[in-house]
């Protein structure tokens, strides 16, 4: 149990777990000194160009070579795919390392949230450079206005390839983006009809990513200039008009607020807290205000231990705590074993969450990864303690409030061996949950 005097520290550790990837002891000391509201304000900021961790992890240089065409030779196709594979590895590892290194973890945590929300996979986009561009868009636009973000995503080359916007033409529209933008990105299931999907698809006709000029273009002759009726609104809408309608609706206010609460606080489908968040969010669709309101909600502090760390969050948190870099291709194999590879969500619905991560396969891989990290990381803060103090030292290092009785029993058995103790600490239920 946390004593009353530890309450501020416990609350701030919770904030750092959810707004970031867990706090180091030094970060927590500083946060306690600054206070809760000031720490929220310091975290919820756009990425800073002077962040030392960001400066240490510049994005990889990736090629924007044109994708093979029908006229390409087999050798050209093979060479292209090989480049996608190798650049993809570079990109995935770079982001993992950026998450580990960023001094302010919040911009990366938020970018990761948006990546799960606008889930796009390299395996179909087949351009690491375009996936990186989308990633930068989520990072720079992820704290602004949601209508602008959704519009930018709708015109983002990777998304345009991923959901086939690039081939949507008047007369025989392609419904892929139109449907998922309503169901998953802006409104949520049940807040639109099948007719709305078909009408919405017409609005986006003619949007193209021109590979040669590397630019977004609206091709007038491919655009449906007829009158469309979507969600009760009627007019000659284009995609931008439609996104304004979608994002400025009661259903969208609720959907975006709910998604944020579910991923940063606690998994729910309906909760009075969402009504409160909506009133903050809806006037300007301000995501920054929504995030601040989420972390400052009194109910937020009642959600300790209510989320399971996603595999990426778990690995990044462990590496940050043990002062390591994600500079080893092994981590990509580990993430595959855990079921979560960055830039490769299983589908447009994004990744599972909570108990979805607590399977056998995951627990076995987690054990192996924890062993690797514990053996290679800086465990001096634990090793330098006498055996009797190492369990508490590990809790301190990982900003865990306290170990449960069963974990204490387990840690006591390996207290003589700091590597095993750190391995068990990283696998302990109190660390795997958030």
């Amino acid at each position: 149990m946390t004593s009353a005097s530890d309450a501020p520290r416990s609350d701030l550790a919770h904030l750092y777990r959810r707004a970031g990837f867990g706090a180091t002891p030094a970060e927590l000391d500083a946060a306690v000194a600054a206070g809760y509201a000031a720490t929220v304000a310091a975290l919820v900021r756009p990425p800073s160009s002077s962040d030392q961790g960001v400066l240490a992890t510049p994005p990889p240089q990736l090629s924007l070579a044109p994708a093979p065409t029908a006229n390409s030779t087999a050798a050209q196709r093979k060479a292209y795919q090989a480049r996608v594979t190798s650049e993809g590895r570079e990109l995935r590892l770079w982001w993992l390392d950026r998450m580990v290194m960023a001094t302010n973890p919040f911009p990366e945590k938020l970018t990761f949230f948006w990546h799960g929300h606008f889930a796009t996979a390299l395996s179909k986009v087949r351009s690491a450079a375009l996936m990186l561009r989308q990633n930068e868009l989520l990072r720079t636009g992820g704290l602004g206005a949601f209508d602008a973000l959704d519009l930018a995503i709708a015109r983002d080359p990777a998304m345009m390839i991923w959901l086939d916007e690039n081939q949507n033409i008047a007369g025989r529209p392609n419904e892929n983006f139109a449907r998922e933008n309503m169901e998953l990105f802006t409104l949520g299931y049940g807040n639109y009809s099948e007719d709305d999907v078909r009408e919405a698809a017409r609005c986006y006709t003619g949007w193209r990513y021109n590979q040669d000029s590397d630019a977004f273009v609206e091709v007038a002759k491919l655009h449906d200039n007829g009158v469309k009726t979507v969600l009760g609104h009627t007019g000659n809408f284009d995609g931008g008009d439609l996104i304004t309608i979608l994002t400025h609706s009661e259903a969208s206010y609720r959907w975006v607020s709910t998604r944020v609460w579910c991923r940063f606080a606690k998994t729910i489908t309906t909760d009075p807290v969402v009504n409160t968040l909506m009133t903050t969010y809806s006037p300007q669709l301000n995501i920054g205000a929504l995030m601040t309101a989420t972390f400052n909600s009194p109910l937020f502090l009642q959600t300790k231990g209510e989320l399971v760390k996603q595999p990426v969050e778990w690995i990044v948190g462990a590496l940050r705590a043990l002062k390591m870099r994600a500079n080893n291709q092994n981590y990509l194999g580990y993430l595959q074993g855990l079921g979560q590879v960055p830039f490769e969500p299983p589908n447009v619905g994004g990744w599972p969450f909570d108990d979805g991560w607590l399977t056998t396969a995951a627990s076995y891989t987690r054990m192996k990864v924890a062993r690797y990290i514990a053996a290679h990381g800086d465990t001096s803060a634990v090793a330098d303690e006498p055996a009797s103090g190492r369990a508490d030292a590990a809790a301190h290092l990982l900003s865990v409030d306290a170990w449960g009785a069963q974990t204490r029993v387990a840690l006591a058995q390996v207290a003589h061996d700091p590597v095993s103790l750190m391995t068990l600490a990283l696998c302990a239920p109190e660390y795997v949950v958030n």
Partner: protein
Amino acid sequence: MPRTMSRRQFLISSGVVGGAALAVGAGGITVRDLMVAGKRTPLATGSKIVVFVTMYGGNDGLNTVIPYTDKAYYAGRPELAYDESEVLPLADDVGFNPSMTGFKKLYDAGQLAIVRGVGYPNPDRSHFRSMSIWQTASPGTPQPTGWLGRWLDANGADPLLAVNVGPVLPPMLAGQHCAGAAVPSNGGVTMPDGTYGSGLRALDTASKNSAPLIQRVAQSGSDLFRVATTFGPTLASSKTTGANDLAGQLDVVARCIAANAPTRVYSVQLGGFDFHADEKAAQSTLLGQLDAAVSGFLTTVAAGPHGKDVVAVLYSEFGRRVAANGSQGTDHGTAGNIFVAGATVNGGMFGDQPSLTDLSMDDLKYNVDFRSVYATVLESALGADADQVLGGTFPKLAFI
């Protein structure tokens, strides 16, 4: 109180269910557990083993089992259509996609049933809602339990009875009191010994007083040790090449079956069927992978002690629109095919080919409720009370 189920994005991201009470996936069952369990309590020869293959994304049934004599097929999708000379003929009016040579052999051998026009009332064209309808067997009201999870609940609640290959448990296998196990898809499992091993074992001993999620984490590790001292045959040589490697997943299943694992239901998956654009070649390639993996698997198990017991069932969340879109692809549709394959399956055609001109919102009308297929599997393969699991009576088909 059990916590809500795994992989809830199917249900909750679409706002479909609330915080429903569900069993979570059985923790820590490994392939080796199954191997050892197979030695202790080998599955009796003659007990049917059902392998479900989930085809994520909505497979285009009309370009899988192709109505190659129907003018409306060519009229609706001229850029996508296969002509008579390309298809692998199954009957006077339908033939397989050219890449499905293995399935064609199975069909000709009388070991493949094709159920046509499968769907449910008021079809939903959302991937996530429709897949949850299929996995919960509940088209009307959202249902918090998977249909095979309910079968587990009603049959001794043993997680070893239903096993998913891969790190994420599908909702299909999650019941209220019990959920199927999930085994890793990439080979052997070696658990540590010494004090590190015993420490891990202690860590994974869940206290009944802990918070549910805490218990859940501990449980997910604890069963890793069920056979720590009994070294069964390993699967170290089985290795998938990626998350979407169906052949690799089925290799794990084949090994478990050969080792007499006490498992009656396996779940494997192949994604990528959502071809809104440039469908023809890509779908054919994917169907070729499916065909090779499933027919190869059936050949492998046919040589073993359970060769006559294995039944493979393949399904997808929906079929696709009859008419192609302007992107040489197809948008989300309704009715599709289910395939049932195995040495003792009664091969042939079941259900009627839906009309390509008598449509509902441009989509096919179903004529077989998918729960009829489930009822047949439950009663004829698993010896279960289908009405209890499905919450209603659905006419059985004669494919088993």
